[in-house]
């Protein structure tokens, strides 16, 4: 009976899309054999097997349409929980100091550098601009009062995006499990999760990122549902929406790559199935392929590049991020000394110069009055690489033996010449000797030595233009040069390692005995001041858009991997996250302050963790019973398929958003788990619902039904109650800390590692 209805509805739906009607009716007459084929979809039967699962997916027997009341309820509750006390605390919390500041930079059009792609900050800036924030608040450090500045607009924007997550989760789970109750469980877990609330309430990238991730997943499952009517309007709509969301996700943070991977794997599987469908001609398959390439690769790529184009077009004034970029890049920023600059074309003796390392995000050769500490090579003046513009980056070029009198017409420095570099501020010479370098033990130390031009033979460097010949002059900005130490034969090198506190956390400069040509050992002359030479305009330098794009990506990736955890600090590890081991302090430490603590609702998080295990067991049972061909009723088979297909996608999403963190060397934080947690919550909804609906495996029908209701009520109640007791984490705590008796959170510090 159920079977017939299925086919009827399938036909009815098919009629709506005329384009593919013919093709579809061709392969409808297979209802009987379908169910058998499903289990062993190996190569032999895959050709037919896929087409039947296409049909199945549009007409699942237990399918429920979205319940409008439930959707409205979810929407209302999630907005209510996210917007409640949104404006509190009225001071900067945690990373708002970065992202709020970057939003202001967009409003002020000042160039800055950040390790994340720009879309999230552009949106924050836009939200601020639209709600009347003028970009004047300095965002110096967490805890600063906003005062009269209009910060709620930016927070509201993030909260609005964050509020849509439970709704998305509802639709995704509904689509994957065809069960309203599963969708409701998933949505409830997210609505009443203190962590999700907290992270949505502040000016952060995470709500924006998660919005796009969930948006992409939702459009993907909606798109999959349209399988039976390819190339009709809604099919295209969901395909393009998937693409838009993907570009949004990667445009906010590189973590968006994981959802791209998820969609990519899904699409590859989808195409593979289409290829195996012998009803389709190769031309059809090619059409499918092309459509997906357009929607999921070309469109996102175009949007992503557009975001960067906007970023560079908006930020046209020089700002704090200049030094991270190459000299050519800087010449396009208004206010930078290289903008519309003119300077002598060729390097000459007697000039004042700055020397920049060619490694991307390499610094300027720098020295200052401080000495190397005891035990670090010779106790001479430090020479480092420094990313910011500074007077201590200036060096004078001298001949090895020259006195103070310069000839009238300055002599040009040529390839192979031996020069002495004198630090302008301290008059010490760039010097190296056979002492080991501070961090890179196999290199030699570079110091500042001598005073007022006096020095020794270790101050001499042979200057070579890369790819140059003897006698070639050195072009400012455009020549790559190397400084070879005459006495030891090593080459001036910037390792990229950060010096400890004594070196002001600047970058180490060494003299490397390995003469391989790498950007680390190549430098260019950036500023060049010599009043005796005629200046030429340097506008030729302006780089192409693609060059800027490439460079900014390399700088971002470098910056990301440069965020290494410091040894002395206790940092968060990936295994901490699913067990909710330790949260993050968003605001306030002491008893008197308004404290907000980012921590997931422990009940839901631990439930999620348990459900991962439960899911593994259930899916193992389901797949083994299918593989062993155990006799199962139709309903049971449906459960198995929901678990394996729907659950499989969610598990894959969870894995893709979680497992890669184990291989990352950069510093990790608790909030990195939130995208994975979304998937985990959805999986919990699906798993628990299937479990409750399978209660009739062990119990007779009326009891099973009671158990189902009881389970749902108990689940909802425990989520609500745990939210009630933990809500101060999100909405602010005052008064004594949790381990003291008078606290509102007394007795709730279930793990010693929680800090509230």
């Amino acid at each position, binding site marked *: 009976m159920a079977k017939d209805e299925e086919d009827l509805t399938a036909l009815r739906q098919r009629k709506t899309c005329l384009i593919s009607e013919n093709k579809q009716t061709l392969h409808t007459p297979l209802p009987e054999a379908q169910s058998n084929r499903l289990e062993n979809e190996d190569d032999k039967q895959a*050709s037919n097997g896929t087409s039947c699962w296409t049909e199945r997916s549009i007409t699942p027997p237990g399918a429920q349409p979205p319940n409008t009341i439930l959707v409205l309820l979810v929407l209302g509750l999630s907005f209510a929980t996210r917007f409640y006390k949104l404006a509190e605390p009225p001071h900067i919390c945690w990373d708002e100091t970065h992202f709020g500041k970057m939003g202001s930079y967009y409003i002020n059009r000042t160039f800055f550098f950040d390790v994340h792609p720009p879309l999230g900050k552009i949106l924050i800036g836009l939200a601020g601009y639209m709600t009347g924030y003028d970009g004047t608040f300095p965002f110096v450090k967490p805890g600063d009062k906003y005062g009269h500045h209009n910060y709620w607009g930016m927070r509201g924007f993030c909260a609005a995006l964050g509020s849509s997550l439970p709704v998305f989760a509802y639709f995704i789970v509904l689509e994957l499990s065809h069960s309203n109750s599963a969708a409701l469980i998933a949505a409830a877990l997210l609505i009443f999760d203190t962590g999700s609330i907290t992270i949505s309430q502040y000016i952060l990238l995470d709500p924006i990122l998660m919005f796009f991730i969930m948006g992409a997943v939702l459009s993907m499952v909606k798109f999959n549902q349209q399988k039976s009517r390819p190339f009709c309007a809604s099919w295209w709509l969901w395909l393009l929406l998937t693409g838009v969301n993907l570009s949004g996700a990667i445009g906010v943070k590189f973590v968006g790559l994981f959802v791209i991977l998820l969609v990519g794997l899904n699409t590859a599987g989808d195409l593979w199935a289409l290829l195996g469908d012998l009803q389709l001609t190769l031309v059809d398959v090619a059409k499918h392929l092309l459509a997906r390439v357009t929607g999921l690769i070309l469109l996102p790529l175009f949007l992503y590049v557009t975001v960067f184009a906007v970023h560079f077009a908006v930020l046209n004034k020089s700002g704090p991020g200049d030094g991270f970029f190459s000299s050519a890049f800087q010449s396009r920023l208004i206010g930078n000394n290289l903008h519309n600059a003119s300077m002598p074309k060729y390097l000459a003796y007697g000039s004042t110069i700055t020397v920049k390392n060619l490694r991307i995000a390499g610094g300027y050769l720098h020295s200052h009055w401080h000495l190397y500490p005891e035990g670090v090579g010779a106790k001479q003046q430090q020479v480092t690489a420094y990313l910011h513009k500074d007077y201590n980056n200036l060096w004078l070029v001298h001949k090895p033996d020259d006195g103070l009198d310069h000839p009238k017409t300055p002599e040009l420095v040529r390839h192979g010449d031996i020069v002495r570099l004198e630090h302008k501020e301290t008059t010490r010479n760039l010097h190296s000797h056979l002492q080991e370098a501070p961090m*890179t033990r196999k290199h030699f130390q570079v110091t500042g030595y001598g005073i007022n031009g006096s020095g020794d033979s270790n101050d001499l460097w042979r200057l070579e233009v890369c790819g140059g010949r003897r006698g070639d002059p050195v072009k400012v900005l455009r020549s790559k040069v190397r400084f070879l130490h005459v006495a030891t034969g090593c080459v001036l090198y910037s390792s990229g390692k950060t010096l400890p506190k004594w070196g002001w956390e600047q970058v180490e400069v060494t003299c490397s005995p390995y003469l391989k040509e790498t950007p680390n050992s190549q430098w260019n002359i950036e500023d060049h001041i010599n009043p005796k030479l005629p200046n030429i305009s340097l506008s030729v330098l302006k780089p192409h858009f693609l060059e800027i794009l490439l460079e900014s990506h390399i700088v971002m990736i470098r910056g990301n991997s440069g965020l290494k955890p410091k040894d002395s600090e206790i940092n968060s590890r990936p295994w901490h996250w699913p067990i909710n081991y330790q949260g993050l302090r968003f605001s306030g430490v002491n008893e008197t302050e308004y404290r907000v603590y980012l921590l997931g609702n422990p009940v839901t998080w631990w439930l999620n963790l348990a459900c991962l295990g439960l899911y593994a067991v259930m899916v193992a049972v389901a797949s083994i019973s299918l593989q062993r061909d155990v006799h199962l009723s139709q309903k049971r088979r449906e459960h198995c398929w929901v678990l394996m297909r729907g659950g499989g996608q969610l598990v894959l999403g969870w894995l893709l958003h979680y497992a890669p963190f184990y291989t990352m060397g950069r510093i990790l934080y608790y909030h990195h788990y939130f995208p994975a947690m979304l998937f985990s919550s959805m999986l919990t909804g699906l798993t628990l619902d299937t479990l409750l609906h399978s209660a009739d495996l062990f119990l007779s029908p009326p009891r099973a039904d009671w158990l189902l209701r009881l389970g749902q009520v108990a689940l909802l109640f425990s989520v609500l109650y745990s939210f009630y007791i933990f809500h101060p984490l999100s909405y602010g705590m005052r008064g004594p800390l949790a381990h003291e008796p008078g606290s509102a959170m007394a007795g709730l510090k279930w793990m010693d590692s929680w800090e509230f």
Partner: protein
Amino acid sequence: MSKEPTSSILLQAGTMLGLSSLKFPPVVKTEINLVLVLVTVLGFWTRLRNLSYPRAVVFDEVYYGQFVSLYMKRVFFVDESGPPLGHMILAFGAYLGGFDGNFPWNRIGAEYPSSMSVWGLRLLPAVCGALCVPLAYLLQLELGSSHYAALGASLLILMENSLIVQSRFMLLESVLIFFQLLSFFSYWRFYNASNSCSRYLWLIVAASSCAGAVGVKYVGVFTYLLLLGIASVHTWQLIGQRAVSHLRVFVECGCRAVCLVVLPVLLYVFCFYVHLTVLRHSGPHDQLMSSAFQASLEGGLSRITRGQPLEVAYGSQVTLRSSSSQTIPCWLHSHKANYPIRYEDGRGSSHQQQVTCYPFKDVNNWWIIKDPGRQELVVNTPPRPVRHGDVIQLLHGMTSRFLNSHDVAAPMSPHAQEVSGYIDFNVSMVMQNLWRVDISNREAESEVWKTIVSDVRLVHVNTSAALKLSGGTLPEWGFGQLEVVADRVSRAHHSSLVWNVEEHRYGTSHEQKEREVELHSPTHIDVHPNISFLSKFIELQRKMLTVKQEESEHKYSSCPLEWISMTTNIVYWLHHSTNAQIHLIGNLVSWGMANLSLAAYQLLALWYLLRRRRAIRDIPEASWCQFQRVGVVCVGGWLVNFLPFFLMENTLFLYHYLPAYTFLLQLLPAVLEHAHTHLLSGKSQHRAGCVSAFAGLCSVYLCYKSFSPLTYGSPELSANQLQALRWQPSWDILYRRP
């Protein structure tokens, strides 16, 4: 395998056995594949010939040699580069050769003394390397290739210069490769065998050699995982066979799980057991380990701590060692110097006596445990032990200051509280010197504080902050010692909060002067802290995985992409006066052909897959299965041994590629054979295929021959000849100016 051996001559030999049995005479029939015997002999000849030349330390022998020496002297060490099985195999060879461990191992090229058996040191890796040749033959057969392909595979391995070089010295790669090949061979033998119980022997061999591979180098894990993957797919297919009964499936799955999961883990742990049993003397790496671990080694700490009282009592004199995971150990310390009144950043301090953590043994590391309710500083008879939860005071032995903490920001970590030796300056800074003992590894609530064994947190009673090693270093006024602070306990169970009593004795002297003398005198008393093997294993394994290797550049280091085209080489050894030298350079011809075969395989696989998806069957099902098998083992083996290096941060060398490359070499004959059977049609094409395969083999031989002076280090070549061998401009070949 049902294939008829085609190229081999079969000998049937009847062997008489003199034992009693049912039939007389008992007859054993054996078939000997002469081709296999021949390649084995050749393998041994290429690997073992003139093995003790050069009589000098070659490349990484200088690294492994020191561990071999330590084994010979049974001195404990920690090597973070890999598990101990590889070192043990090398040491076993040295033991057989009668090496006594007395060699300095200080530089590459140092001559071995004539009394030393160089042959013994290098024998086992060479034998493993030689056995790879017949293993390649057998593996190829198990994968369903013909004897021709199998012969081709073994010849390619045989004439691979880089594998020869790597096998002939005291290095570990050949052992790793041997285990990897053996595990795959025996697994497929198991899979192909008929349904008899004896085939489980092969599975056990496969599992043991997986354990061996992991035990030699951590990268072996990936091979093991690949094998597990293949086995689980096969098991899944078995589950899907509906003709097999449920019980049978259950039993088979259980057996496979035990063999492939439980057994390797046990073997791996066992090799640590041997390691820890053999190495029982204390040595250079003691300080990395916990006090309890050190005390279990002979000499070193156990000599100091022998006879110490076990239970810490009121009046005990103790040194407190930080259990922080930092590599340098340190002890709670104080000395006659105060915190500066103002720090460089303008913050003020209490100006009380400094308390630090000091990385050397010193008389100022001694503290006395005092009962706050009593005055005396000696141990009563009977001693009153300190228990978990007790409140104590800690008195610094030499300066008699109490360990104190208060709400003053610590010098380097301003978020934490300062810890000081209390001095009363009469400035309304009250003494807050009570500390609660919190034993974190207690078994009972009223557990006694034990020497070495107990992990203790000292929680400040007034502020509930715990004594902590902050990780910062004090500037000059603090003599560069490590900073100690009191910090909130919330971040539970972090090792920097934990301290343990290392040296301990019961105080007997009532007067300060006597006490000072007592503190200066060496400790003498005795305990046997028993630490179980399992906790030693876990500690050692964790140390090995977490100790960071000093990132270093090396002249011959390379990046993984350079390996595919072999644009780098490594100079292993250069004669001190002549041009004779040994290089790690592969056989460029087979290198190139293997890369080609990889590309060809991938294209073919893609082609077949797409066509099969459209229900076009180009080749028969059996050939497709065989094609898949070859791909999974060869391409899969190559991938799992190659890709992980892209994620690794340590210094990489060309020899890291050799395991991956061995798998890739196996692919070439299989692809050729596949092309011969399925792609070439007609007699002339077949003939052309055979001729070109033969020509390829000849050129491999020629290449092997031309590089063999650089492989074996003899004969010495002239500068011109060396120049001519520089086939890649990026290779570094040395020659002396005449």
